[in-house]
């Protein structure tokens, strides 16, 4: 199985992989020694040269983000980790932090040193109690080991790391909403510019990076740029976690070079649910336009997915087979966006509400064909008209499902009901639902 390249997940099968002893036994906290022996600018350059791009969805080059922090400005700088994983389908950072929180902490120390930050924050979602325990414990153990606090490893670098536990709001995964939440307010996105690199947390220069991005840094420091760039494609370097879920025989986490295809991942994992065939899937969570069985060979890197009309996003591959009603799936995602809209921008707050009303009618077969155009018109009027991308994400499944499955929407109308039996899509279908 040469396609897989376990790096972050390499030691997750060891029962104590989450402890500081387990991490150190596997070479943990050696990268931070190397990094602290370098000049901060050299660390930034190394990450730039690696081509590492943000693994939280947007794919912005991590090293460039670090390079945007003004130096010599006599201001406090902040390093913030976005651990608020909540995008439907996305399930990589949570198991990562459960199995190995120390690799994240090591990345935080290196990143903070590079951007000259003496305070760092991990903003973790609050709905994962045991992951919170693991990260809390890891931070405590890192302090005891002299890896956090004053004069880290005797190199004169100070860093305080605070774990901030969220309280249930998808929008706080948006970086400026996250910063507002961290400051003690409702989590609502800010207008940009200014960007966080200039005015972030407490209006000070701030880097906000995804968990997987930060956790990838120690391996790059240890193994070098050439090692990292040997994996992946021309503009999408390195390895990443692909999360396979839904109607597959074996769901799970797969670490592979960027550019692997769904066909390859399905071959490795054991394929679509036996006796069924692939109908539609998301390449990177519910905010990325859906794909169909025509996209099995799209290279899953930033450019490949984009060229095919979607986004790599969080590499959350949610697989749905032919038993799934696409209208039901899209309605449910739309209900999610309506619920999670923070309410700040009118097009999103009102638009997602109306999308739900129209989709409910369509799903129950009560709508008319004109409603399909109304949906697209609504999408057109909320996309790009809000402070953040939540509304854009809400429009993605609607527009893409109408592109590939318009007839299925019409079938609901001609029958006057949903033509699908929801029990056939459940995993325990054969065992009986009740």
């Amino acid at each position, binding site marked *: 199985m040469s396609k897989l390249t376990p790096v972050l997940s390499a030691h997750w099968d060891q029962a104590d992989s989450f402890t500081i002893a387990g991490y150190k036994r596997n070479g943990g906290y050696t990268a931070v020694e190397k990094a602290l022996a370098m000049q901060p600018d050299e660390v930034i350059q190394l990450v730039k040269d690696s081509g590492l791009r943000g693994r939280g969805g947007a794919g912005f080059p991590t090293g460039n983000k670090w390079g945007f922090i003004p130096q010599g400005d006599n201001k406090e700088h902040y390093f913030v980790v976005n651990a608020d994983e909540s995008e439907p389908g996305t399930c990589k950072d949570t198991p990562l932090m459960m199995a190995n929180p120390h690799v994240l902490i090591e990345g935080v120390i290196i990143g903070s040193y590079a951007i000259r930050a003496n305070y760092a924050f991990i903003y973790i979602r609050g709905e994962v109690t045991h992951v919170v325990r693991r990260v809390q414990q890891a931070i405590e153990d890192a302090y005891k080991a002299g890896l956090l606090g004053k004069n880290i490893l005797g190199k004169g670098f100070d860093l305080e790391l605070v774990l901030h536990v969220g*309280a249930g*709001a998808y929008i706080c995964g948006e970086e400026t909403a996250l910063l507002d*939440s961290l400051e003690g307010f409702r989590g609502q996105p800010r207008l940009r510019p200014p960007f966080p690199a200039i005015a972030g947390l407490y209006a000070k220069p701030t880097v906000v990076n995804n968990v997987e991005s930060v956790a990838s840094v120690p391996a790059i420091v240890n193994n070098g740029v050439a090692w990292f760039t040997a994996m992946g494609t021309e503009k999408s370097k390195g390895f990443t976690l692909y999360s396979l879920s839904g109607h597959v025989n*074996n769901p799970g986490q797969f670490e592979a070079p960027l550019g692997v295809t769904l066909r390859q991942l399905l071959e490795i994992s054991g394929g679509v649910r036996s006796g069924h065939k692939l109908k539609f899937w998301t390449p990177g969570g519910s905010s990325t336009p859906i794909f169909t069985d025509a996209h099995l060979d799209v290279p899953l890197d930033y450019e490949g997915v984009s060229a095919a009309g979607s986004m790599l996003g969080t590499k959350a591959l949610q697989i*749905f087979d032919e038993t799934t009603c696409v209208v039901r799936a899209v309605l449910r995602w739309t209900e999610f966006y309506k619920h999670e809209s923070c309410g700040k921008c009118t097009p999103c707050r009102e638009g997602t509400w109306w999308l739900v009303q129209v989709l409910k009618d369509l799903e129950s077969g009560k709508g008319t064909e004109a409603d399909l155009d109304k949906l697209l018109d609504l999408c057109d009027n909320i996309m790009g008209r809000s402070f953040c991308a939540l509304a854009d994400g809400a429009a993605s499944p609607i527009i893409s499902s109408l592109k590939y499955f318009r007839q299925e929407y019409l079938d609901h109308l001609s029958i006057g009901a949903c033509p699908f039996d929801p029990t056939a899509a459940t995993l*325990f279908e054969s065992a009986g639902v009740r």
Partner: protein
Amino acid sequence: MERSTGPVIPKVVQSIDGYVTNEGIELIGQKLELATAEVTAVSTFYTQYKSKPVGEYHVGICTNTLCAVMGGDAIFSSIKEHLSIENDGVTSDGKVSVEHIECNAACDYAPVVMVNWEFYDNQTVQSTKDLVDSARAGKPIPPTRGPKTLRTWKQNSAVLAGISDGLANEGVQAGEPTLLGLNKAKGGA
């Protein structure tokens, strides 16, 4: 910067009162020198803050698209019927409450159920019925990926408020789906 603790302190209140009480909001306002309206504005924004009591075991059933399709909808409707309560309802003995929740970042373990925000992976209608029955009987089935025993809503609220319960080392480091790619890379089945 004290204000930054604003969204955390309601968890402390929940660990004592079980939900964000008016008394709790007033106390937070006094401590942080904020108007009660400012505190309420924050606490009502976040869904983990409850404005009325929940059960000792708060059951969240994922009904976002993927879990819903794979069985979450069936589990949710069956459990409401089984307990004779609606969404956000609490059983008359105060033991169990039920809420439909959004994606909880465990899609490779779908259908997912959370109790007091601990993972119960790969659930079925029957396994979830057994789970709520065991909780009502005071002997809850332990989480799939979590501590050896399920703690109460108030106890876990304290953990989320930053008060350690020392249980981080309990439970597995990873479940099977988390390890699948690694095992395949090593040539395993």
